[in-house]
């Protein structure tokens, strides 16, 4: 393999290239959603793609999540490989019946006669003062549902290659793109041309405490780990990447070494993916634990609009580091 220089690009650009490549590679693939074609996507992910690929492949839809997600399910059953963009996961609740009652169940209820190879991309998360109806992290809810897969790409590499794996999967796959990641720049290793959508990855190695996170919280958690390192605490950071299925083997292996764990999740604590990770550790790794499991999650409030309140409601590097510190070096 030739040695090529790493390519720098933004997360937004990685999402766009993934869509473009998929559409060019497979005539069954198309993307539809609100304002994706002429406007270029509310987060500008598809900017310019309609001009290049045509409005048959990049399709604007009416403002009806239930209708266009349902259309996507139908197209997938009929043999297409649709990518449906839902502007934010907050709006996806209008399509909850289609996703939960149809997409997730039809392959099972038809005894495998119908596959639903549908990909739904949604923006998630807070941080841009979009207030409580546009800022929540609902991926944990979807991770509750058997029959769908739930992905949370945090790195540019995952943003670039998870779509391809999702389209190849015969199940409905939901991809949650955190809004604060779109502008983030990262490097792509040219030797990597595909990623899996089933494993968690250790993003930083450490022996003192495991920090489990995903999506938009990954970089805050890495910042926390850097701060902890300055104090002599070596934190291991795990990026879950997939919330359903959950790769608990990677988490358990790490906790077996560090014996302490903090779960960081921008969702709320109650009934959440952080609760699920913690409970599975209690079930499967109880005797590995040398300290209580801690969580750093969003405050249990609808996300505030005011910038300082929004930031106060979210996990932050300082709160993550404090939780880790309380386990490793209790005062």
């Amino acid at each position: 393999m030739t040695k090529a220089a790493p390519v720098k690009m933004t997360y937004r650009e990685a999402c766009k290239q993934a869509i473009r490549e998929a559409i060019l590679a497979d005539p069954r693939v198309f993307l539809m959603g609100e304002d994706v074609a002429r406007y270029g996507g509310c987060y500008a992910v598809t900017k310019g793609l309609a001009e290049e690929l045509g409005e048959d492949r990049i399709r604007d839809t009416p403002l009806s999540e239930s209708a266009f997600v349902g259309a996507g399910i139908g197209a997938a059953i009929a043999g297409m490989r649709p990518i449906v963009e839902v502007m934010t996961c907050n709006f996806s609740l209008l399509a909850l019946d289609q996703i939960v009652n149809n997409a997730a169940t039809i392959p099972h209820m038809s005894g495998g006669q119908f596959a639903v190879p549908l990909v739904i991309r949604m923006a998630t998360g807070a941080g841009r003062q979009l207030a409580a109806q546009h800022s929540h992290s609902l991926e944990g809810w979807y991770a509750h549902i058997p029959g769908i897969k739930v992905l949370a790409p945090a790195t540019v590499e995952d943003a670039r290659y998870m779509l391809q794996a999702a389209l190849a999967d015969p199940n409905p796959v939901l991809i949650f793109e955190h809004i604060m990641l779109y502008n983030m720049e990262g490097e792509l290793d040219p030797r990597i041309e595909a990623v899996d959508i089933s494993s968690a990855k250790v993003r930083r190695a450490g022996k003192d405490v495991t920090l489990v996170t995903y999506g938009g919280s990954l970089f805050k958690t890495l910042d926390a780990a850097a701060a902890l390192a300055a104090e002599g605490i070596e934190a291991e950071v795990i990026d879950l990447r997939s919330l359903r299925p959950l790769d608990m083997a990677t988490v358990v292996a790490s906790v077996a070494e560090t014996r302490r764990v903090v779960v960081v999740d921008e969702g709320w604590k109650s009934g959440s993916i952080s609760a699920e990770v913690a409970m599975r550790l209690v079930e499967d790794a109880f005797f590995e634990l040398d300290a209580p499991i801690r969580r750093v999650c969003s405050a249990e409030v609808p996300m505030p609009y005011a910038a300082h309140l929004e930031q106060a409601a979210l996990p932050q590097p300082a709160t993550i580091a404090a939780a880790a510190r309380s386990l490793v070096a209790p005062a």
Partner: protein
Amino acid sequence: VSAFIMPSLGADMEAGTLVEWLKRPGDRVKRGDVVAVVDTQKGAIEIEIFEAGVLDRILVQPGEKVPVGTPMATLRSDGAAQEPEPEPPQPPPEAPPAPERPPPEAPPEVPPRITPPPVEIPEPEAGLRVRISPAARRRAAALGLDLAGLRGTGPEGALTLADIEAAAAARVSAPPSGRVPRVGFDPAEMRRAIAAAMARSKREIPHYYLTETVDLRRALAWLDAANRDRPPTERLLPAVLFLKAAALALRKVPELNGFWEKDGFLPGAGVHVGWAISLRGGGLVAPAIHDTDQKALAELMAALRDLVQRARTGGLRSSELTDPTITVTSLGEHGAETVIGIIYPPQVAIIGFGRIVERPWAVDGALAIRPVATLSLAADHRASDGHRGGLLLAEIERLLQEPEAL
């Protein structure tokens, strides 16, 4: 088997440092015996035991600081068999500190004790349960390590793997010897304790305040006469009249004598007045004079002198700190004219006596000069109302008019 725990010597105490054991394993103890000395924010306090039995195992060594509620020793009832696993004998106090490693000529290291599995596992007693992480518990079981007496350094004071490994490593070396010198209180620590207790009081307790100026002519005249035949060391001070009058009056208004607990007012089991003593170098304590209402004046005077002495040298007993059912503060001849106190939680009232001053006083329609003092009450409005508080002040005033009956 029961546990002798680190007592809470006030609402503000979180932990104490064991200074020395005054009893040894095997010693028979009875209720009220002083068994240990503990250093607190209020100085060194002699800790009494409230159960009779035989001191069995020592779980906390001199110099160790442990949270309130930590078992410090186990106590078995008279006649019960000794615990199967006795603590290795303590070296006498004058023995030199044990070397970190045994000298080369020392006998080979004792192999690790393996605790035989007990036939029947008794239910752990409340308060005796060890806080330990799951991983540490598994490791301790594998090592056959007895958890009693180990101190946790983990979150919430839990024993961690590191604690277990350290205990296993230390198991073969001799227990620590030597003792921490008994010291008086640290003014900075005491300041913190007062700050915490008073801030809590003002935050939680809805105080109401009453004052009454009392004519003391009769009381002081009686005191002069009573002191005439006493040697200076036994003379009664006006404070002792205040103390006794307050204690007797509390019998009539019991809702001011006791504690405000989670479930409401809990009356005191007796009238144990906490006497506020200001300490040299700053700070104050208000230890109890047990059954103040039942003691004769001379007895109370002796108790006051003793208490002040011990408060200043670090010899108070634990029950004196835990038992006060109310506080009385008397400012004495160098104090201010009026004091409006802050209640010491969980008590529900504090009575104050200002300096005795001569003031114009209306007597039978004419002016006279009389020695008077301002009597005050600060009380918890959750536990009592001003009307009852007023009755207490009126009763104290009435009692002070008949000093011969005190």
